[in-house]
């Protein structure tokens, strides 16, 4: 018996509902096996499990949203699932979308996807000998993946039109920054610079929105799956370039601008070859300065979550004091000291 104010462990009930959800789709004989908890709580819950159908067995991932941030910059599970289907259709490697939860599943918002074996930790991907070959092919693979994604008809993802980032990504950042209520005068220098140097209206494409090392599963052979589609929106193709090349996502390999793994030239050339679109280095730079602003705003968001008592954590508190590290790199980039 649990005391009324100490909730029972939710896991057994969730696993039972998952079992029923699986049987609704795969028949009464379907079984779950080897269930592992990857994350429990926070803003989402992730479980790994085997779907057993007779003699066949498939490793799957259960992902459930447990908490929605107020004024969240992240899209909901339903559009995420649709994006996985669109990406897969266009040849972008993603975890296979298997099924979405329906109301009768009583699992709230979420979905089940295929499990992809591999590594996501940037430190290992950038340095372990095991991934030497993956690093060699990284620039070309990343460029071809982005070219395929950007070639999709944005009308297929028309449901993203309503996200603020699809309308004006800079205005979307400023709206969030103002909501968190902490002024950063040096950050505003970059905001002003961005306003005064906006690139000419580019072609409008489907963007991943968080395309960087850490958000992809890699094997010794290279990129196996692109994850974390919750920042996806419609916009300029070079936004995905600026984020991948952001100094913060080089994990210390500052002289390797493309994800801390490769050089710009082969990456830009591979994208031009695959997409037929030339890459304007100045436009990429604009999106890198934008990326610093966005990355600062995301850190300010985490710190706000902490001090507003919404979700306290030493990690979120640390984000607040890390914001100036990004701010410094942003000013050094504007000055031309960092490239």
């Amino acid at each position: 018996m649990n005391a009324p104010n100490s909730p029972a462990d939710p896991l057994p009930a969730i696993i039972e509902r998952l079992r029923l959800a699986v049987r609704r789709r795969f028949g009464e004989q379907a079984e779950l096996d080897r269930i592992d908890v990857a994350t429990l709580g926070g803003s989402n819950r992730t479980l790994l499990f085997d779907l057993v159908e007779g003699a066949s067995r498939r490793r799957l991932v259960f992902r459930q949203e447990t908490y929605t941030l107020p004024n969240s910059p992240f899209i909901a599970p339903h559009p995420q699932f649709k994006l996985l289907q669109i990406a897969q259709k266009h040849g972008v490697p993603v975890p296979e979308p298997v099924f979405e939860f329906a109301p009768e599943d009583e699992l709230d918002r979420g979905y089940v996807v295929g499990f992809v074996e591999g590594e996501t930790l940037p430190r290992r991907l950038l340095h372990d000998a095991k991934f030497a070959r993956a690093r060699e092919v990284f620039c070309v693979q990343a460029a071809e993946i982005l070219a395929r994604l950007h070639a999709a008809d944005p009308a297929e993802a028309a449901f993203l039109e309503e996200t603020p980032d699809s309308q004006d990504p800079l205005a979307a950042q400023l709206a969030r920054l103002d909501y968190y209520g902490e002024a950063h005068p040096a950050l505003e220098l970059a905001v002003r610079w961005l306003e005064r140097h906006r690139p000419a209206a580019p072609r409008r494409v489907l963007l991943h929105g968080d395309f960087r090392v850490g958000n992809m599963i890699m094997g010794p052979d290279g990129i196996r799956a692109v994850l974390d589609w919750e920042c996806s929106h419609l916009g300029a193709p070079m936004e995905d370039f600026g984020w991948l090349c952001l100094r913060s996502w080089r994990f210390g390999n500052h002289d390797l601008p493309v994800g801390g793994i490769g050089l710009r030239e082969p990456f830009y050339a591979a994208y031009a070859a695959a997409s037929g679109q030339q890459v304007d280095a100045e436009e990429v730079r604009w999106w890198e300065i934008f990326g610093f602003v966005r990355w600062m705003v995301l850190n300010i968001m985490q710190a706000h979550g902490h001090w507003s008592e919404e979700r306290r954590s030493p990690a979120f508190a640390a984000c607040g004091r890390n914001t100036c590290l990004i701010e410094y790199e942003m000013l050094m980039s504007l000055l031309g000291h960092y490239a």
Partner: protein
Amino acid sequence: MHRDAPELPEILRTVREFIEEITGRLNGQDRYHAMCANYLLAVAERELAQGPAVDAAEQAAFAHLPGDKAALAAQIRSGGFDAQWDELFPLMLNHVINKVRISKPEHLHPMHRAD
């Protein structure tokens, strides 16, 4: 009048050293949060040591700017400093360098390191 020993910097150091000692025995999220807690304590120690001097220097350097951070930010965003961009930029860079010196001094480019 001072309170009894240990004084505040010594208290922070004591807690930081204790967390550093147990961090290696922790796993997963607890270990990560312990590392974040260490980081925050080190920030607090540096702020306690350097904060007052930095604040005084910035107050003098920014005397001709809007005193309120929010007002300054709003004016920059609306273009109110476009004409004084070249004077404002080094002041803001210096302000950010001061913040980094407290958060993580080794993050600075050698041209901005004090040591």
